[in-house]
């Protein structure tokens, strides 16, 4: 199989996984879920570091730097802000925020 066909196969299957995993979420969690998914879309940071590393001309360096920086903001900010939101969802009885680090 060519790389393209493998890529398309992976894309289609991953899309179905995405539909299946998400479709049973209570509305309460929609905002953190959107935020968390948004952080995952920052996976483009992988392509960004590859592109920025090529760096043959000044223009490429500038664009590469911007790509890495923006993707990193997406990833770091996205996961942190999601964690901050979820921190607020304390279960009844679990009043101690310090003990919330490893929920099962």
């Amino acid at each position, binding site marked *: 199989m060519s790389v393209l066909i493998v890529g398309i196969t992976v894309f289609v299957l991953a899309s179905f996984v995405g539909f299946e995993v998400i479709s049973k979420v209570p509305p309460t969690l929609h905002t953190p879920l959107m935020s968390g998914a948004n952080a995952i879309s920052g996976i483009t940071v*992988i392509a960004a570091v590859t592109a920025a*590393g090529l760096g043959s001309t000044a223009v490429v360096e500038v664009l590469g*730097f911007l790509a890495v920086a*923006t993707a990193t903001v997406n990833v770091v900010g996205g996961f942190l802000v999601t964690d901050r939101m979820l921190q607020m969802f304390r279960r009844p009885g679990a009043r101690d925020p310090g003990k919330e680090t490893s929920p099962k």
Partner: protein
Amino acid sequence: MIELLYLASAVAFIVGLKRLGGPKTARSGNRIAAAGMLVALVVALVDADIVNWATVAAGLVVGTIIGVWGAIRVQMTAMPQMVAVFNGLGGIASALVAAVAVLEADLSALPAQTTLTILISTLIGAVTFTGSFVAFAKLQGLIGGNPIVFTGQQVVNASLLVVALGAGVLVMADSNPDVYWILGAVALIIGVMAVIPIGGADMPVVISLLNSFSGLAAASAGFVFENNALIIGGALVGAAGLILTIQMTRAMNRSLANVLFAGFGGGDAVIGSGEMSTKPVKRATAEDAAIALGYAESVMVVPGYGLAVAQAQHATRKLATALEDRGITVHYAIHPVAGRMPGHMNVLLAEADVPYEQLLDLEQADPRLPQTDVVLILGANDVVNPSARDDSSSPIYGMPIFNVDRAGTVIVVKRSLSPGFAGIDNPLFYNDNTLMFFADAKDALEQTLAALRDV
């Protein structure tokens, strides 16, 4: 080995997303996904032939500082805007990556499918970027929430699309890099043009859809760089964002096409709102509200965006506790689209330590309303508008609402009589059993709490 590690991070994303869907597992899910991201990033740093370490390191450091600063500094009420900004940055990153690919490689030497994915990544990434920032500006109040429409808009938009597609075809046929930049510039304009005609009330749907787009842009970048981790991560987000978007439009009883193209959700175009607003309303003071609440047996709080704006979640909780101390049952009715994002109210009330079991969704809360003595509406409007039930000419007709007019007494806390975010007048305000308490939600609650001590 590299591929296996990428697979591990892809699995982490799937498990993470799955766990984000349950209240008990959500936080660990987010951390698992973050760990997967860290693995993928480290692998990419090791695997890629990076010659320009300084550029890469500078980008990572600057991005981390801005990301941490933004995430810590943002208030819970401004969360939708923050997600929009992060999302827009993710989109432009994918477009920039595609641009670098164009600069580094000779377009004519690339296989057609690679050129095509470069174009897709650029188009979607750029649209996501400007679209997200317009959504941010609308939510932040930098530009008006009303739909921006003008004569010939459809013609302009159609022309832009034709130019973008034409440029794409030219790049494919000629491998001319100059035309590529035209495509990028037009895509940026399309993002602006696509979002400005959509009313502020619909921004959550737009952000959700653009979130899906940024995933697709990342997946396209994955095709350009032949990287399965990117394709999987991007496809997952693309599908997840789409499902969320559809769920949100369903909660408003509208179709996605209606949200995107109907120019709905502003104040200017509503016929008759002027004449409605001259009708008399019953004004209430903090003392009136305290008396009504203090002698009730059951109270239902309906929070909306006004509560978020006023940062009134803690004041709400204090008043509710005082009422419960008097033996009054207090519940919260949470509409799926209350606030600016699904679950927005849940996050805010959770911040104020409101117990889960007091939060009722639409199906649970609505049947209780006829037996409820007092409904306290805090900055909500469209989700309690009886027009959605009674007036087939109303733009929100058919949207599921809380039928609060069936409760004993309704107290509406609102800053003014101006229409809500959707720009529609609310007949509820003129009912005999409705008391209008014109104030900032936080001030109103604190005054009512003080007055309650004397009741």
